[in-house]
């Protein structure tokens, strides 16, 4: 089961590797990202960022969905990562067991960031991403923004009000 599906531009990085894997108590990390699955250099940096003792799988989004639905994983707490909202939406629609979706860091470092819709200090979305996020927020799964565990969980629906 997915203990948390996190949307983060940077996939595995300092906040994620040390802080969240500890907080969520997840022995397995799955990066669901088509680019990473096909790029050995990106895979290398992701492996480097994975804490000692944690297992890592890097898969295309479609293959990751198969991993999440594998009956062998039903008892395993998995921390899933995508770097965009569209991929998270696809996973959310195709995987049953997801405890929560954390839309954490999106668009902060995009080149056209100033053209986007700002939802919070860490969420800067394009119109298309906004549409996908609205769809995500309507699913029957808690969808929230929480960059680090000491932040409060802000429901995405409350950030979307009036947008």
């Amino acid at each position, binding site marked *: 089961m997915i203990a948390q599906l996190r949307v983060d531009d940077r996939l595995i990085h*300092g*906040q994620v590797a*040390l*802080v969240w894997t*500890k907080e969520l108590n997840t022995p*397995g990390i*799955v990066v669901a990202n088509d680019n990473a*699955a096909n790029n*050995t250099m990106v*895979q*290398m940096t992701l*492996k*480097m960022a994975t804490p*000692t003792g944690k*297992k*890592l*799988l*890097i*898969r295309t989004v479609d293959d990751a969905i198969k*991993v999440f639905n*594998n009956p*062998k*994983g039903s008892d*395993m707490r998995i921390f899933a990562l995508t770097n965009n909202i569209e991929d998270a939406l696809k996973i959310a629609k195709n995987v049953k067991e997801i405890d929560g979706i954390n839309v954490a860091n999106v668009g902060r470092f995009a080149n056209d960031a100033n053209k986007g819709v700002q939802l919070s200090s860490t969420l800067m979305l394009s119109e298309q991403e906004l549409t996908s996020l609205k769809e995500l927020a309507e699913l029957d799964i808690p969808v929230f923004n929480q*960059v*680090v*565990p*000491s*932040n409060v969980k802000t429901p995405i629906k409350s950030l979307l009000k009036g947008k």
Partner: protein
Amino acid sequence: MIIANKEMKHKDIKGENMTEILVASHGHFASGLKNSIEILTGMGDKIQTIDAYVDQSDYTKQIIRFIENAQHPAVIFTDLKGGSVNQKVVLEAVNKKNIFVVTQTNLAIVMAVLLDNEKLTRDHIQDLINQSQVELCQIDDSQTESNDSDGDFFE
């Protein structure tokens, strides 16, 4: 000298006991490290700092106050082995029970201690130190090998 967070909370977000942490350095390394930890974890307020020699004040009193007021076990991180800050800390902490002094400090070890939930013994802090070493980043075969299999993942 900049002193931060004289009033520390003893509980983390889960309500478990946390190790109290003081970082003492030459200049702003200590407060800079605290700033990095705030960005990474949001827990910068759990770290006390001494930025020594940025003005003329005597920081010895702050070391003594930390040792007296800290819930033990507590850890004092210093920047440089044998440096004056480290010497002062060691002199004050010697023979004090459950005050650990760690030197040659890096970001990884302070975060490891901060995020740790186990009771801090000498052996355990040594394990954390062993996992937090500076290292040369190099590409070896295991890192360029293709993805691990699903089977290994679920084992």
